[in-house]
Structure formats: C-alpha cells, structure tokens
C-alpha cells in the first residue's frame, strides 16, 4: 500500500522498519529523542527537525541514544561499535559538523576493511542534513558530497525524494560498508507515494527522472527538482531533456549516464556543491573519457560558485543553482 509520505517521514519509517527487523540496529545523535535528563517531556524534539520522533517510544533509550555534544566521541563510537557487530545509524545533525569528527570517518571507518587486509567490516551509517536554502549560513548549508565521495571506502547517498530515501536508507543500514547518507533539508517536507512495506534500492543505480532525446542533465538531491523544472521550460522550446538522478554518488552509475549521453550527445552536469573537484566535474571527466565520440557539443557544469554559502537570502538564492541557469546551460549545449 502506498501513501503520500514526506521524505522526513519516509526516513523515520526506514529506521523504524530496520530497528524492528534487526536488533543490532541502534541509532544515536544529539537530541534525536531530546529532553534527556530534563523534567519536561521525553522525546521532546525527536531530532532538530523531528525526523526521529517517536522512535524512543518504540525502542527505548537503549537503542535510541541521545548523545552529549561530542561528535568525535559518539561518531567514533558508532564506527567502533559497527566494527564489533552492531549496525549503528549515527545522526550528525548538519553534515557540516563533519569537520569536528572527520578523522573517525575518513581515517578510521573508511579504511578498516582495506587496511586490515579484508578482515574487518564497518556497517555504520552516518546520516545528516546537507544543502542550502534555509538561510542557515556558511557552516550549516554546505553540500559536501564531493568531499565524502573522494574517500575510498565510503559510500555516499543523496536521495531526491521520499521513495528513494526510504529504500536507500534501508539499503544503507543493511550494507556492510560505511555509508554517508545525505538528506537535503529542503526536501524533508517534499512528499511522494511511498509503499508502507520494506524495500531496498541498490547502490550504484541511477534513476531516469525524465526521458528525453536532445540533451542529458545529470544531477542528484534537490537539484533533480530544479533540473526537472528546467526541462519543463525547455520542452516548450522543443528541447527534449533527459534528467538522470544519480541517487548514489559512490558508487556512481556511469553506465546509465553514458548510455544517455550516447543517445543525446549533450551533457549538463548540475551540482549544488562548489565547482572544483565536484560531482559535476567528476561526471563530465568520466563522460569525456568514455563517450567523447558521442558528444555533439562541449559539456557544461552548473554548480554553486567557488565561495562559502552566504547568509543574506538574496545572495543565497544566487548561490544555489537555479532552474533558469540550468535551462540556459542546456540551451548552450544545443548551439
């Protein structure tokens, strides 16, 4: 049975289903229940935006652990527990806070399997918010997906809708490698049909969000929606755009991308991240390497500028790639 569910509720449901199914799944994070030690209500917050609300009532404080504000310690503890047989899902409220605890993720979690000669596995999920549009300024708005994607050993997921979020999160929890699960804060209330039962979406399988023949847009996360908006505009100009939602950035589904470019001969890569060493530049480089002969024009990238995220709404709106900028880039490839 499918219902219309927001991405926030779909994530909650994925956690709920996996905690019910597998007693080794525990979740932890700052205020993920909230009210710990206080005299008011238990589960006072359920996460800063309510994503984990209700889970402590179902699974208790033994499996839904509020943490002190000590990211190095509790993210590292999640990694360590994962290496010792649990399946922790640790929330790092804003993935910008990765700066505080990155060692535990990229020098520890990401390397255990390889460094220990294959004799370890680290099935941890680090989930948290990414992206702009909240007027949350430079330290709470970043799209750091390229940083995570760069690290061998980490898997990186960034869903664009509630259906994918549920299936990909369940897959992330069952997956035996460390996963960085990036939730765009501006998609939490976005709702689509989501089946009530459990299902997984395999990693490394992009979705074709819109089929088209004249040009390919490759993107992920919130930008999928901007790309679809651009495609609508372009359809009126008889430009028939294909939109590919990567869904997982590591592993990345290059086959689907290349197949599409071989059909359209035109490529626009869209990324909310900063431009240098980005997902967009990575996609373009791979396509040039593998499908150069199919190209009818030079590929284009539409990304945030090479600046921190500004606070002022007028500047932030310019910072985040717009549907208009995407449409203009596609037009550019048609010339």
């Amino acid at each position, binding site marked *: 049975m499918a219902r219309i569910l927001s991405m926030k509720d779909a994530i909650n449901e994925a956690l709920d289903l996996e905690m019910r199914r597998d007693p080794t799944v525990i979740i932890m994070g700052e205020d993920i229940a909230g009210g710990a030690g206080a005299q*008011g209500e238990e589960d006072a917050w359920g996460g800063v935006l309510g994503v984990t609300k209700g889970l402590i009532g179902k699974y208790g404080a033994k499996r839904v652990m509020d943490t*002190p504000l000590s990211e190095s310690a509790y993210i590292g503890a999640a990694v360590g527990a994962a290496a010792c047989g649990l399946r922790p899902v640790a929330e790092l409220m804003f993935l910008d806070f990765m700066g505080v605890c990155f060692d535990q993720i990229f020098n520890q979690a990401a390397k255990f399997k390889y460094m220990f000669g294959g004799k370890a596995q680290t099935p941890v999920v680090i989930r948290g918010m990414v992206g702009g549009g909240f007027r949350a300024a430079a330290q709470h708005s970043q799209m750091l997906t390229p940083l995570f994607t760069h690290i061998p050993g980490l898997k990186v997921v960034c869903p664009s809708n509630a259906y994918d979020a549920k299936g990909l999160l369940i897959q992330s929890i069952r997956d035996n490698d460390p996963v960085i699960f990036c939730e765009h804060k501006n998609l939490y209330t976005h709702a689509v049909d989501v089946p009530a039962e459990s299902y997984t979406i395999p990693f490394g399988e992009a979705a074709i969000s819109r089929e088209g023949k004249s040009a390919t847009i490759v993107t992920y996360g919130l930008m999928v929606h901007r790309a679809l908006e651009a495609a609508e505009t372009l359809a009126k100009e008889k430009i028939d755009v294909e939109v590919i939602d990567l869904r997982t950035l590591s592993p990345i589904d290059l086959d689907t991308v290349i197949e599409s470019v071989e059909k359209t001969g035109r490529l626009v890569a869209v990324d909310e991240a900063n431009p240098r060493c980005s997902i967009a530049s990575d996609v373009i480089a791979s396509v040039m390497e593998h499908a150069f002969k199919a190209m009818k024009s030079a590929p284009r990238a539409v990304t945030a500028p090479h600046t921190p995220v500004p606070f002022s709404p007028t500047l932030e709106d310019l910072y985040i790639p717009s549907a208009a900028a995407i449409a203009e880039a596609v037009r550019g490839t048609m010339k």
Partner: protein
Amino acid sequence: MSNNPFPLPKEKLLEAYTKMKTIREFEERLHVEFAKGDIPGFVHLYAGEEASGTGIMMHLEDKDRIASTHRGHGHCIAKGVDVNGMMAEIYGKVTGSCRGKGGSMHIADLSKGMMGANGILGAGAPLICGAALASKYRGDGGVGITFFGDGASNQGTVLESMNLAAVWNLPVIFVVENNGYAESTSIDYAVAVDSYIDRAAGFGIPGVTVDGTDFFAVHEAAGEIIKRAREGGGPAFLECKMVRFFGHFEGDAQTYRAKGENEENRANKDCIKIFRKRVGGAGVISDAEFEKIDKAVMHTIEESVQRAKKDPLPSAKELLTDVYVSY
C-alpha cells in the same frame, strides 16, 4: 555618591546596566520580529544571560579577544560591537557587521576583539588559545576569553584547548555559560562530573563557579582570574550558572522544560531585575536614572530595526567577493 557599596563607580554601574538592558531589548525585539517572519535563518537569543557577558566584558579592552558561540548577540553588544551593524547583519543587509554574508551565527568585529559568533560548537576554544598566544608572544598584556555552553563544554576542542592553555600557560579564560540545557538535553544527562571546578582541576586549571544571574558575582570572579591571566598566571575556568528565557532557537516549543519554569525564571532569575533591585535599593542609581536609560535603549533598538529594514540588500557581486585576500 559617597556611600556606593559596590566595587564599581557609579558611571561603570550605569554602563553595565545600559549594556545588559541593550542586550535584553535587542533580544526581546528579535523575538517579536522573528515571529513576524521578517528575519531569515536561525536565531538563538541570549535573554536572561546578560549578567555573564556583561560582568566579564567590563574588564576587557579592545586588545582582549573573545570567541563567542551560536548565542552570540549578548557577547557582541557587551564587547562593544555596533548595534546597528548587528541588527542589519541579522536582517541580511549589506550594512551589516559582515556585509550580510554571515548572519546571526557569525557576527564578528575583529577591531573590537570580537572573533566571531560561531556555528560550530567548541570551535572558539582553540581559536582563543591562538589569540592568547599572539598576545603573549607580543607581550601586549591581552587576554582571550572563550565562551561555550554546558553542551559545548563536552566538545573535544574545548577539552584539548584546556590542556593546551595549561601547558603553554596562556592567558585564556574558559567560560562555560551553563543554562542547564543543550538544545533540549539537560546538563544532568550530558555532563558526568557534578562540578566544572573538578573538571578544570583535572586539567591543572583553577576553576570558579558563580551565580550567573548576579552581575556582581560574575564581575568579581572574572576580575580576579582575568588579572591573574594578564600577569602571566595562566588560564582559568569560570562557570556562570544562568537561565535562558527563550527556547533554544526561535521556534522551539520547549516541551522539555518543567511546567512553570519559564515563568519562574522571569520572576526570580532575571539578572537585570536583580541588578536593579540591588543598585536601586542601595540608592546608587535612582528609578528616574534607570528609566532614562531604558528609554534611550528602546530608542536605540527601535532605530536599529528601522534602519535594518530600510537598508539595502547586498548586490549580486557581493556573492563573489572576499573569498580570498588575493587569488
């Protein structure tokens, strides 16, 4: 005024009251303006905590540096940052302290020794060790104060900095502004030691705990440890126990609080009321004098809001400026 029982001359008492009142009205006004939907982003209010920032900052000069937190408006005002620039910043205007690029969580004015509010908990502690190192290196007598909440007191950066400051004998004061909560989580859950003095002792740093709703208690304790640090005596730890009047951020329903807690705080733990009662009761500042300040403060705040609303937004080219010094 010959019979002033306080350790500060009258003009300093007037200054302290003006600062605390300015902070209070700044925050009360933001609470109202935020509810109207005029203010973008996250706003964390310092109302109820004024005596801490003010009591400490009364001892500081521009050469002394502070590193603030996400709840930074009070520290800014107490350190002398321009109120109009702050208000404009919070509204995202180009006339703001950071040209609208930082917002509430990143207000800074290095010329005033204000090294920035901070969106990353605990991030100010290592930075202020650096500020103190620079002062010590130059021998300019400057001290560094790092503020953090009870929640952020658990950050590795804070704990590492305490050891570093002790090892290098830096003129740093670690100030935990203990309002009992980190977002919705109580300090009783998140901090294992009963006393921060014990924690500081573990790092070889002297600690003192004061009632942060009592301006004079904060002022006195801060005075001693700041003087000691200035004279080369090394770091110290100060705990100010206090209450926050509003939610963690604007929009917080505060269901984690005990029933009647906010009312009780407003009634009995209001540092400004407490100050006024003591100083007024001793006959050092008259009601008329207090009211005159109140009026002037209301005017300052009103003007800052009117200006901020009218001020221009940053132009598109601002997006790309000031990423580097040169590139």
